[in-house]
């Protein structure tokens, strides 16, 4: 029995402690390992700063949008005077109704720093109107350079999902083979009854080091975002721990391969590519085949067809509206824009809403299915977890769009009788304006 084996047999805890200490000493004296960890930390920190600043900028933009809306509301309230019904009054009421609805925004959750760009790509701003929001194609999409959007730095969650496995595999994917090639394995077998334990300790240190890099960057990202919450950070750190452990398990599986260290490393890379790129792409292809998104181009055609139908039926719709609302008595008999357009907008909205909402519903449905199979690809599962914590997932977006539709109905119901009755908005009307759900608790 070797001295080490004798020592371990007498004091097992002390032996374990010494093993951990020895491995720690070995780890910190390996320049290649330190270089990989330093590179990983540098990239993760850069990404964390980028995403954290993105989240902070987003929250500032939301606050600014809200403040501007409140300022407009206060200004209009001061300027509002009651007056008689007239064509000018109808126009003023219409202009207010189409321009001054408080903006609705899908705010990020406590983990927004994990995926701010994912939220931005969803068009999370919505301003309701009494016109036809869905036929005005100029609204809703941000300006961006497509090249930078294509190449740009992904969100922190995506960077972590891609780089952590690479680091784990580089550091630990060929530990066993390296030990055998260096003659270390044989030596350890001679020194210890459980040589495998040494490998497991070496793996554990490497996994902890990788997790620590990711955790440090995550804390930084959340520290930069003023809206970040401790709960989101803790969930994320837990998810990262699980993620690193899964890849640690994969690395340990590679030890079983009867190949050289270089070949084991290559096998690790192939696994990384398969789970990180090929499988998610295959899942998307499967999803596209099983439940494809509706065509945006076909939607353009359907929207125009409805637009044309409503335009052709404008006179009838106008007549029917006044017939159905005898309590509204307009001061004129010949109606022009905007009054003549209002019933048309209502008809258009009724027909176009289901068409437009198909996209949100299908996106949410596809996400539900994707979440069920995401365990097949750990990187995909981590990205989805990041989206959930950021509040940038399609399910939440669909709920947001539901709220927008509800608010738009309230807004339209409030203004339609007033515009059709050629009424001017008075101070009392402005106090009774419908408010979106997220503004109801705030006082004006």
């Amino acid at each position: 029995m070797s001295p080490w084996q004798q020592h371990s047999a007498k004091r097992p805890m002390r032996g374990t402690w010494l093993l951990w200490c020895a491995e720690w000493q070995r780890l910190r004296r390996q320049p290649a390992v330190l270089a990989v960890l330093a590179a990983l930390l540098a990239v993760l920190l850069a990404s964390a700063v980028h995403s954290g600043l993105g989240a902070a900028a987003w929250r500032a933009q939301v606050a600014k949008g809200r403040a501007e809306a409140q300022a407009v509301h206060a200004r209009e309230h001061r300027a509002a005077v009651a007056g008689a019904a007239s064509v000018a009054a109808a126009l003023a009421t219409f202009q207010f109704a189409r321009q001054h609805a408080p903006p609705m925004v899908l705010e990020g959750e406590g983990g927004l720093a994990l995926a701010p760009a994912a939220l931005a790509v969803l068009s999370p701003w919505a301003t309701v109107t009494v016109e036809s929001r869905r036929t005005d194609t100029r609204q809703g999409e941000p300006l961006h350079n497509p090249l930078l959007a294509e190449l740009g730095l992904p969100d922190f969650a995506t960077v972590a999902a891609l780089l952590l496995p690479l680091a784990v595999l580089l550091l630990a994917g060929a530990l066993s083979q390296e030990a055998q090639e260096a003659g270390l394995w044989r030596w350890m077998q001679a020194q210890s009854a459980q040589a495998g334990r040494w490998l497991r300790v070496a793996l554990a240190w490497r996994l902890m080091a990788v997790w620590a890099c990711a955790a440090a960057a995550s804390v930084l990202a959340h520290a930069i975002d003023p809206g970040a919450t401790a709960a989101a950070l803790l969930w994320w750190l837990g998810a990262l721990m699980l993620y690193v452990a899964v890849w640690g398990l994969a690395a340990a599986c590679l030890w079983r391969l009867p190949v050289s260290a270089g070949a084991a490393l290559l096998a690790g890379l192939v696994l990384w590519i398969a789970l990180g790129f090929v499988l998610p792409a295959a899942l998307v292809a499967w999803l596209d085949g099983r439940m494809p998104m509706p065509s945006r181009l076909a939607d353009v055609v359907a929207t125009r067809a409805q637009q044309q139908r409503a335009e052709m039926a404008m006179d009838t719709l106008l007549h029917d509206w006044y017939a159905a609302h005898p309590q509204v008595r307009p001061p004129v008999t010949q109606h022009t824009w905007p009054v003549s357009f209002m019933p048309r907008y209502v008809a258009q909205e009724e027909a176009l809403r289901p068409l437009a909402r198909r996209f949100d519903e299908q996106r949410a449905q596809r996400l539900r299915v994707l979440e069920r199979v995401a365990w097949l690809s750990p990187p995909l599962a981590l990205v989805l977890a990041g989206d959930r914590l950021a509040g940038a997932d399609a399910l939440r977006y669909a709920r947001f769009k539901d709220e927008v539709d509800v608010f738009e109905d309230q807004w339209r119901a409030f203004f339609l009788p007033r515009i059709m009755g050629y009424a001017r908005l008075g101070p009392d009307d402005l106090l009774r304006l419908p408010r979106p759900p997220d503004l109801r608790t705030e006082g004006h």
Partner: protein
Amino acid sequence: MMAVLLRHELRAIGRDGRFALLALALFLLLAGTVMQSVIAQRRLADEQRAAAAETRAQWDHQGGKHPHRGAHFGLYAFRPQGALAMIDPGLQAQLGQALWLEPHKRSPARSRPVADEPPATRLGTLTPAFALTVLLPLLVIALCAPSVSADRARGTLRLLRGAGLRVPHWLAAKLLAVLIAVLLPVLGALAAGLAVGGAALTPGLWWRLLTLAAAIGLYVGAVAAIALAVSAWAGDTRKALALLVGLWAAAVLVVPRLAAAGAHAAIDVPAAGAFAAAIQHDIHHGLPGDGDLASRGRAVDAGLLRAHGVARIEDLPLGVSAARRLARDAYADKVHALHFDALWARYHRQARWVRAASLLSPAIALRSLSMAMAGTDLRHQQHFEQAAETYRQQVNTAIDQWDRQHTRGLRSFEEKYADDALWQAIPGFAYVSPGAGFAWRGAWPDAAVLGLWLLGGLALLVWAGHGLVREGRS
């Protein structure tokens, strides 16, 4: 001698089970992505054709309307994709699929496919271009990393040198063998994909395809030269492999993204709301030296009265609303052009930032060049949007001129005096994609950068070869 060495290296590669496995995997992946891309591009082309035909039919059969309301119903422009988009869809996912053409306003393209894509695509969209730019270097690395170091470790190099082998010849043979082993199946897979996709091989497409193939050759050559040099420099295969994988991750995953983030931070793009507001401001208040909207309108009216020798607007022998609109829209077009040109200039400055980073990563240069050849880059999109904008102005001018000629004085928008004859008289949008020369003019710096990378790789290989020679003497 070279022929013997080359044959020997090719035979060695053929016998390497790992290479065969990886090459087969990459070939299947490439073939799969090409097939998937072919299907996606066909579906997109079919959808575009159908949407273009139907939106045009809707335009043609609007029925009786006020001409300006008919113009507001608008037309749509859809950009046809070139055959090479199936190899590199480039910016397709980030670009709007449809461009709405209406009076008064120039709109950016809308409905970005990326907004409808599931989160999985953020990890990377598996396209042939992705396989070529990101995964192909891994195959080259797997092939080259053990190539020199293993021969050194086994003592083969010492034996060969004893037999009179010259190290530069030996390294050149290895490089050529890697190029042949990698490029033949890759280019074969791409050619087969194009054939299956039914691409019509016009001379323009041939030139673009040849340029792309040459660029892939330069890229693979550069990566192989660097990988062989590292293999010669490193003590063992594991060290060479770890270093090369690190370099690969930096070059294809990190540098392009940091470059894009740097470009974004250095050159700001206005927010959509601010951009639209600035255009409206300049239309209403006028550009420096011009009057505001009201004064410009008064000047138009005064000019019309003077030209026709009448004192009242009502007496003008033409459609006054249309005449005013023509003048207003001509000014709006000028303002829009100014702002959109400035926006595109910003985009191109950002692109130049990214291009500068290609000196640190050949993957950026290859990606830029392949997008240019496939016609899916920024310049081709700008070319299309400019053509669509010219068409938008022509359509609206034609309708307003018809209105000006066929009416008198001021007419209400509620009047419906235009019919299908007017809509159908408007010619369709016939977009002609630019030729290969246009793509080359945009992509030559990328080709030059790839050439520099190859030269740099070769220089590194020569330096590593000298090291081997010195090592043999000592």
